């Protein structure tokens, strides 16, 4: 059976070049980078080269890069670490209604410890308004956390403008850029951010490794305790093969990012245009200010998990914001925040494209999906009483 992978926002396949870069660090180069002897020193060299690569890819200095276990840990460290370091200064944190749970839940945890959280709503496209953020700022605000690009609907937020305001007011600004790296150009100075989270496996790197960018001078407290690795902000022996993979992967990801984005957008628009020809199907998210590889639609009268299962039986891998796939009783908080009703949220489908996808694969999806939708609708009591 033909297999088409359209779930790149979940994870990507490891790039072979990345694997080859990592390979020596499993056997020959196994020293602990903190060791003084030659085994340690040669690994330290690779680790620091990787740090330089990550820094270069986002326009930062190497000493501003902290290696972590991935996006979740980076977001947690950014939010919790920044709040704890500044709690004498204030207790107010601003975030948005469409953040990843790594941000939302970190903010919830702060709330339990006496912090006040303002959650900025979004418009029907999932977009945060700069004005809303500005108006939410009080003299107690110590941190603003707004994602660069949304993982579900791909909406690209006005992060640079929000960052500019935060800088003017002397407020720490964090952005979760996990979905953005490798898809759109990312530069920490252009974005005016103090903290930025990224994760290797979203751009053809290995799983279980990521980084947090920490602008020089940003106040941050570590959230775990132990050795002096990563400037004590993230103690524990580094995941060396992972870190090496991260460095190689980000180097490759940002190379020709613009031309890759053009190619992806073309495939994305082919898929969007084809899907919108189906009756009672709508696009979620912004038509143009969205990640080049993101397609998110709502299929009325059917439920997302049954769509995914049916597509999977035809070899097509994608995801949904339905409750059944979110692991909770509620459908996607992102889609609900955008004002979708429950039916549209339960009937959502997300396709996220990668550089290896082809036009033929998109056409295969477009040929396959009408029959699936028709079959499920024929079983649906909501469709029957339409």
């Amino acid at each position, binding site marked *: 059976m033909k297999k088409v992978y359209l779930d790149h926002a979940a994870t990507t396949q490891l790039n072979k070049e990345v694997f080859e870069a990592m390979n020596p660090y499993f056997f020959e180069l196994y020293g602990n980078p903190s060791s003084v002897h030659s085994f340690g020193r040669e690994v330290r060299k690779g680790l620091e080269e990787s740090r330089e690569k990550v820094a270069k890819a986002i326009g930062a200095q190497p000493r501003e890069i902290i290696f972590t276990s991935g996006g979740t840990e980076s977001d947690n460290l950014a939010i919790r670490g920044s709040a704890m370091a500044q709690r004498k200064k204030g207790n107010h944190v601003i975030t948005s209604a469409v953040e990843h749970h790594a941000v939302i839940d970190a903010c919830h945890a702060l709330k339990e410890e006496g912090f006040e959280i303002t959650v900025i709503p979004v418009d029907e496209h999932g977009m945060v308004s700069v004005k809303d953020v500005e108006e939410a700022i009080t003299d107690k605000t110590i941190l603003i956390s707004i994602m660069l690009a949304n993982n579900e609907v791909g909406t690209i937020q006005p992060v640079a403008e929000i960052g500019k305001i935060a800088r003017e007011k002397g407020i720490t600004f964090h952005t979760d850029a996990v979905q953005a790296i490798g898809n759109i150009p990312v530069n920490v100075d252009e974005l005016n951010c103090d903290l930025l989270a990224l994760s290797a496996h979203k751009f053809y790197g290995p799983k279980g490794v990521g980084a947090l960018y920490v602008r020089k001078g940003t106040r941050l407290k570590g959230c775990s305790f132990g050795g002096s690795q990563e400037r004590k902000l993230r103690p524990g022996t580094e995941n060396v093969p992972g870190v090496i993979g991260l460095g190689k992967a980000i180097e490759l990801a940002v190379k020709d990012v613009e031309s890759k984005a053009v190619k992806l957008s073309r495939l994305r628009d082919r898929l969007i245009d084809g899907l919108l020809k189906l009756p009672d199907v709508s696009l979620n998210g912004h038509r143009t200010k969205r990640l080049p590889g993101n397609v998110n639609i709502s299929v009325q*009268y*059917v*439920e*997302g*998990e*049954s769509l995914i*299962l049916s597509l999977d*039986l035809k070899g097509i891998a994608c995801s949904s914001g*339905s*409750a*059944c796939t979110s*692991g909770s*009783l509620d*459908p996607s908080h992102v889609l609900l925040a955008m004002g979708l*009703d*429950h*039916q549209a949220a*339960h009937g959502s489908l997300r396709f996220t494209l990668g550089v290896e996808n082809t036009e033929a694969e998109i056409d295969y999806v477009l040929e396959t999906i009408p029959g699936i939708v028709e079959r499920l609708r*024929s*079983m*649906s*009591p*909501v*469709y*029957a009483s339409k």
Partner: protein
Amino acid sequence: MYTEKVMEHFTNPRNVGEIENADGVGEVGNMKCGDIMRIYIKVNDDNIIEDVKFRTFGCGAAIATSSVITEMVKGKTIEEALDITNKQVAEELGGLPENKMHCSNLAADALHKAIDSLVEKQKEKKTK
């Protein structure tokens, strides 16, 4: 995550549709949680279920449980059908993932509602 039998029923659901002039119709679930099941039954003079059909909006588990219960009750008396529990439906499918046991395993409830509506109708007829 689903058993082969769940996938088999999801792929080839039995008795999809509705029964015109059904003797009983039962619907459970709501759009908020994302599962809606409607079951139609037709009985003979001995209250034996002769025909049963369903329509379901929901996930794989919701569709498979609806489908399998239609097989389980055909030819049964309404008393026997009332004894069927959601748990038995899940067992018939070789089990369901834990997180599906409460939200999508409602087929027996829908069936019982259909039977309730049938009994209600029969009572009304008698009093007339």
